[in-house]
């Protein structure tokens, strides 16, 4: 219970920080042709150019550079950096723009080049970020339990990303006499997963995605205390272990960016791994052991979570 409350506090704190964080500006190019650099350094390569009068949004300033994104001639989203000397900061998004100011802007000269469509540079397209989730798991064979985890993602492009995650979920396994299954107890699983994400942004704020990948599953199994005691009363020690295993997963999620850096994230993921294990029943009087291997424990879990993502 304390653990659950603690996780809730962390979650709320993270949410509050997200709500107050992040500068957000609209830039207007004030030189005839401005270079977009690949890195926030003047010596870095020029990956594109924009014309005077074009406007761009930026939520990230690195030194004297503003990070923006444009769509190139092939339709790809290109991220880059404009030097502060070539742009004019018009307004932050939070500032209220009065009608007078709007009207005052109307006489501004039209750009000489055809304005390019400006993509909002929301965090979902950022190159890296961190997410925290809390939720539940429902294992197909062994019941349900609490799940939580964290991940780090890295956007290769606007639509493709890589995610590395660490989860923890557990299930209360059922009592059964199936020699191929785990006995009654608690199975805790910590999967270390790497996923390839395919993102399908809808506008600037909503980013659905699908993901899939592989993982290494750290398993810890604890037999039910009453079960152990019932055998102990008969003079027999009962032990079971589940080995770590390699598995795969796939799933889908949805990020909603209410702020360029902060998103509410929800996802559902199916994890599947085949583990090995062992069991042993030992007569305490004679030391005679009956033991065996569990060679084909097909463990699957559907994990659903909701949490926050922070892009940086």
């Amino acid at each position, binding site marked *: 219970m304390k653990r659950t409350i603690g996780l809730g506090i962390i979650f709320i704190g993270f949410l509050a920080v997200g709500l107050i964080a992040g500068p957000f500006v609209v830039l207007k190019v004030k030189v005839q042709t401005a270079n977009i650099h690949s890195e926030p350094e003047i010596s870095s390569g020029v990956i594109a150019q924009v014309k005077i009068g074009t406007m761009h949004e930026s939520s990230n300033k690195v030194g004297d550079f503003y990070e923006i994104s444009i769509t190139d001639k092939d339709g790809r989203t290109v991220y880059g950096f404009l030097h502060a000397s070539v742009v004019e900061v018009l307004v932050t998004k939070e500032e209220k723009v009065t009608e007078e100011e709007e009207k005052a802007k109307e006489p501004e000269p039209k750009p000489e080049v055809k304005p390019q469509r400006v993509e909002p540079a929301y965090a979902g397209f950022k190159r890296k970020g961190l997410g925290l989730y809390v939720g539940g798991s429902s294992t197909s064979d062994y019941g349900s339990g609490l799940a939580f985890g964290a991940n780090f993602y890295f956007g290769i492009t606007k639509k493709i990303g890589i995610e590395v995650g660490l989860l923890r979920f557990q299930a209360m396994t059922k009592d059964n006499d199936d*020699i191929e299954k785990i*006995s009654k107890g608690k199975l805790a699983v910590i999967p270390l997963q790497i996923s390839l994400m395919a993102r399908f942004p809808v506008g600037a704020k909503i980013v659905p995605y699908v993901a899939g990948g592989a993982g290494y599953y750290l398993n810890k199994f604890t037999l039910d205390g009453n079960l152990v005691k019932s*055998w102990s009363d008969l003079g027999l020690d009962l032990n079971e272990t589940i080995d770590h295993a390699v598995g795969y997963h796939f799933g889908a999620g949805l990020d909603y960016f209410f702020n360029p850096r902060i998103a509410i994230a929800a996802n559902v993921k199916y994890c599947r791994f085949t583990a090995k294990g062992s*069991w042993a*029943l030992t007569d305490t009087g004679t030391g005679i052991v*009956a033991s065996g291997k569990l060679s084909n424990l097909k463990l699957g879990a559907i994990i659903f979570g909701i949490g926050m993502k922070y892009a940086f």
Partner: protein
Amino acid sequence: MNKSKVCLWTIIFIAALTIILVSYNPATILDEFLKNSHNTGIPEIQKMNSFKIKFALYEPGNLAILPNKFPSNSNIIDVPKVQKNLSPKIEFGLSKLIHPEAFVDLNKLRAMGVYPAIDFPGTAIQVVVESVIDPKASATGVFLAANLVRNQIEALGGRYETSHENLIQCQMPLASIEALAQGPLVTFIRRPYRPKALAVTSEGVAKTGANKWQSVASYRTGGVKPKIAVLDLGFSGYGSKLGSELPPSVTVRSFRADNNLTPNQIHGTACAEIVYDMCPNVNLYLVNFSTDVEQHNAVNWLISEGIQIISYSIGWTNAGDGRGTGPICEDVKKAADRGIIWACSAGNSAEEHWEGTFSSADGDSWHNYSGSDEINSFYLYKNHSVGGSLNWDDWGIWNGTVYGGSNNDYDFWLYIYYSGSWHLVDWSAGWQTGGQWPTEWIGYWYANFDTYWGFAISKFDTTRNCKLEIFVDGNDSLLRYYSLAGSLDIPADAPGALAVGATDWNTDVLHYYSSRGPTHDGRNKPDFSAPSGVSTASYGATAFYGTSASAPHLAGAFGLMKDKTPYSLSDITKILQARAVYLGDANLYGIGRLSLEKK
């Protein structure tokens, strides 16, 4: 008070005390009780009562009561002329049935009130023909030879029933048996060896801790029910107990020639009830037989069915050398070699057994049990049947199929005490010329009056003084000269059998009748002891006593642990041995009283 009054009161006091002491003489109590009790009901109830009485009063220290009641003069002076049977290839008892006039004076016996307890057959009798067929020979050779013998049987008017290796069981006209014996492929013709169901006598409840095991869920067994077979003589009434005292469904099969699973015998049903009480989650087989040949076939079938545990509350005498060999023990060996647990009652013959080396101090060819006493006597109520068996240590080598045989020839005699003297009733004087078993058997007889009976042994042609062994069959007799040690029934002596002695469920005291080790080759037996006395529907609210009740407890314990755990049966054997409650001498209690509880 004057002196005369003191003397008078003293005399009265002493007289009263004397009357009280006399009236409380244990022998008097026993005698009166027996006289009053044995006329009171059906034979089975009498049997149970007598067991209770013996248990209550025949504790060590009280045994001295009975010898004084035996007839003092048992020296045989009227040595009868020994009448051997005509063909050494025919069992002596069978010869008597073929030519009864040559052996038994039935009219004289009837005049005394003595009768055979079995009917002399009319025209045909069930026999076993032992042939020269070598079961280890090629299958084709065995088949052809068996068919030759079978054709000969049928040509002489016989009817084939069943067979096993070199044994052919058939119905044979009495008049044709001697002709059949002359066939070159026939080595011996005998009546079938018949087992005995071990006795039901008292009450009790198991206290093995099985109930605690029953409450836990099975672990790593896959939910597979253990297969336990109750191999017995009959299962009368089993149908009405399905779903209550027995599992809802059971597998049944009769190996009797008449396929009768319920031949007026509830003994097997009661044993099955105990197995089910101990191990409720069981795949139970009820299988019966009545002869040695039928048992061989039954055991083969049980093996083919994948039976894991056999509960066997049956005992045999004269069926082996007591060293774990012989055709009945061979069945146990065959099962044990395949990992089958054979829970076997040790027998109820502790006080119905005598063994000793032949000795005739007076040189008259009659064995002297003690001093000049040549009859080993026992008391028997009227209308109770009696038989007896004699064997001696000259079996020869057991090769897995046959014994080498004996060339020491002893004979066996049954006497009855009537009008102050012993009278010959019956005898068994088969040939032992080198190939025959060293056995003689007499049975069954009864009298319409309470009296003593006795067995005598004479030597006919011997090369040495052999070690002799007597078992009394068919009643709960206490022999005047008995040998507690070595009183195991067959196949409790088999190395592959787990022999079970009987202990009182409440006190853990060994029941007086429980057969004891060692085996004739010196191995400790029984292997376990187990409670005798669980109320069963078959025997009503009274109890099921005897090692018959003990063996199914052990079989059920194996089944229960097999049902609950993934242990192998050999591991379960070791665990049960470790958990057994130590009670004392291994030849009385085995390793201890059966317990499933941790120590």
